[in-house]
């Protein structure tokens, strides 16, 4: 039965599913700290250029994904300024690698993650943080012991939203890292590729079903976790 199930998808399709999950997982995990920091800065700090930062964060949401992908290519590609630097000093190459796909997915999912976390931070009463301060907690401790636990539902929601978005990312990914089977071919890229060849429709349909299952599972999981956390955090 287990073997049947595994055989339901062909090796190329399995490769796309595994790659998609790996890319989305790392894209989400790696961008989470920066996402929390950005959300905190936008929610709580006043600084010059705040609106510019806000715009930059949200840009991938509005720009055509192809444009974002192209910008990534000229920045992080082998000839790009940042790409050259990373290659020479750290031996990190992003273009046409799965890591590049993760970067593209992270950039595209970032606005959704930041929005969810920012809303959670804005819902935390600063008076509670002040109370923690009077009890002897320094700023970092206040964040760790009060703010962070209270925004945990928002962080989880944001992370799962970002994961789902990363699974579905297509335009920026294919522009930045192309569509190399086993290397950069995620589920959406694979569906696209299957649809370009005669007789590929069946495989494409199977991947469509997988995409729907992953998206639903992510949504249900986020609901479940957020509810559990909210019960703990909500104080009843």
């Amino acid at each position, binding site marked *: 039965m287990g073997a049947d199930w595994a055989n339901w998808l062909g090796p190329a399709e399995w490769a796309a599913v595994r790659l998609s999950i790996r890319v989305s997982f790392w894209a989400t995990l790696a961008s989470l700290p920066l996402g929390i920091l950005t959300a905190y800065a936008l929610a709580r700090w006043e600084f010059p250029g705040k609106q510019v930062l806000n715009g930059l964060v949200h840009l991938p949401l509005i720009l055509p994904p192809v444009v974002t992908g192209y910008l990534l290519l000229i920045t992080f590609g082998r000839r790009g300024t940042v790409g050259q630097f990373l290659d020479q000093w750290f031996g990190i190459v992003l273009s046409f690698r799965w890591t590049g796909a993760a970067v593209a997915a992270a950039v595209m999912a970032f606005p959704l993650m930041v929005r969810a976390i920012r809303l959670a931070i804005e819902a935390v*009463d600063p*008076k*509670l943080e*002040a*109370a*923690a*301060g*009077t*009890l*002897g*907690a*320094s*700023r970092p*401790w*206040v964040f760790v*012991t*009060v703010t962070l*636990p*209270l925004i945990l539902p928002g962080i989880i929601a944001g992370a799962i939203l970002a994961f789902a978005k990363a699974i579905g990312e297509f335009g920026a990914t294919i522009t930045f890292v192309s569509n190399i089977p086993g290397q950069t071919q995620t589920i959406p890229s694979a569906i696209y590729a299957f649809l370009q060849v005669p007789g590929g429709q069946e495989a494409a349909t199977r991947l469509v079903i997988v995409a729907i299952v992953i998206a639903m599972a992510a949504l249900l999981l986020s609901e479940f976790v957020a509810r559990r956390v909210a019960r*703990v*955090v*909500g*104080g*009843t």
Partner: protein
Amino acid sequence: MTLALRVRHRFAGFDLDVDVEAPPGVTVLFGPSGSGKTTLVNAVAGLLRPDAGRIAVDDWVLLDTAARRFLPLHRRRIGYIFQEGRLFPHLTVRQNLLYGRWFAPRDTQPESLERVVDMLGIGHLLARRPGALSGGEKQRVAIGRALLSAPRLILADEPLAALDEARKAEILPYFERLRDEVSVPILYVSHSSAEVARLATTVIALREGCVAAVGTPAQVLSDVGAMGARDIGSLISAKVVAHHDDGLSELTTAAGPLFLPRVAAAPGSTIRVRIAAHDVILSRAAPVGLSALNTLRGTIAEIHPGHGPGALVVLALGETENLTARVTRRAVATLGLEPGQTCHAILKSVAIAPEDVGRAQTHEAAE
């Protein structure tokens, strides 16, 4: 421990300019809303950086703008009891109580959890989360949390204002215990003369950002400048003699017996009773055939005619206590009242609300 407070701070359309000292015990910052009480407390706590000033508890300086010293909030060692409790919703009551101890310096000797829990009667709540507590329970936990952070000073910003009358009556005794059983000085913000009467060792009356009066509760509550003629009252101490079956308690004062609705104090103990000036009726002759139960005999010490139709008549009761009555100037003229005369003050027992009756401070009772 003495708290020295010198603060100048300018807001839009509002200036705070205060220079006072608060001796040990409970110091009540008293005044109407907008008088600068909360600003002052926030300056002490470090939640607000005033334009100029110096704040110190003995030789421990929290703020000195001249010396460019501003101790950050979390290093001030202040137990702040907020109006709304501000318990951490994601922590249990026990975790809330122990939160401050985590951060207290190692060399301090915080109160024991057991003693505080016992004193506040919150043992059965320890495993719960704040969301499942009543308003009064929350505030008791908030008191405990402040106490257990090993504070050098406790601040309470109108901790009862958000509670209904019944909850107020529930919490006030805990503040009395705090005053009597804990050595940490307390700065308590209030706009209620009942709370001043029950809790204060010292009162600092604020009006529009300035100190209007400083003194004992008896002095300040009967000070027209600090209180305004409408809210003026007297604070007299009385000893509980007995509780009677008809719901009244019998007390003795320097000027005769006093019957009050049952007070929560054992016979033999001394309590303080606040009597609002507008609840006092004066009579030259000893009254007969009156439904009012209480007649206190005194000597007229002072008469202050007001700008309007009213006048304040201060009676000396015994050696040290005064009772102020607010009557009309016409009544003063008709009765021919003059300083030095003997006069009878008539009080309705039911006019004295339970929140006006407090346990006297232990050192006061010992005198």
